[in-house]
């Protein structure tokens, strides 16, 4: 079991999850909208398709941060 701090820029919470679950299944379970922002796993941007990989696939065995960063339009 790993601890995942999950959320958005402004709203985060910590949940314990099976490291062999996919990132997508955890985001869905926690009602995190990942369609409007950029997903970051421990600060690194997730690429298309990586959302269907498991935490274990990324070598996470203890804890991590999974944050959906929503950017405002004024960032020019």
């Amino acid at each position, binding site marked *: *079991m*790993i601890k995942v701090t999950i959320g958005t820029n402004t709203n985060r919470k*910590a949940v*314990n999850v099976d490291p062999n679950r996919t990132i997508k299944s955890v985001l869905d379970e926690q009602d995190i909208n990942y369609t409007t922002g950029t997903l970051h796993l421990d600060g690194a941007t997730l690429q298309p398709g990586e959302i269907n990989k498991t935490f274990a696939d990324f070598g996470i065995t*203890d804890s991590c941060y999974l944050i959906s960063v929503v950017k405002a339009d004024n960032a020019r």
Partner: protein
Amino acid sequence: MAKTKILGTAVTITSAVKVADFKTLAKFKPTALALTEVVDGVKEEKFSVALGTSPSVTKYGIVFDSANTDGYAEVTLQIPASIAADKRKEYVADTYGYALLNLNQLEGQIAEVMAETEADFIAINDGIELV
């Protein structure tokens, strides 16, 4: 209370809760599968249990990946071969002690919730009429 057995370089932790009961709670009362604590005014999961396909025992929880012949959830892990036979018990207590402590506490919580859930199911079944 969970039981821990060391056989050679393998350690097996057997829960006092059956796999079927884990499945029932995961479906109807998933919050019962986690111990919670309040951190900075926010309720967080302290320790959780789940059923999965690969074993995992950490300070955050346990993923049970099998069941014994009586249906109780089990997880089997390897002890490094470099640990001498007489030091394995000490290794297990040191490495998994915190998780086992929390597991015993969580099993107590689960037993209470299961008793309530069974009563709820009896009430639900009584309310279903087959016409």
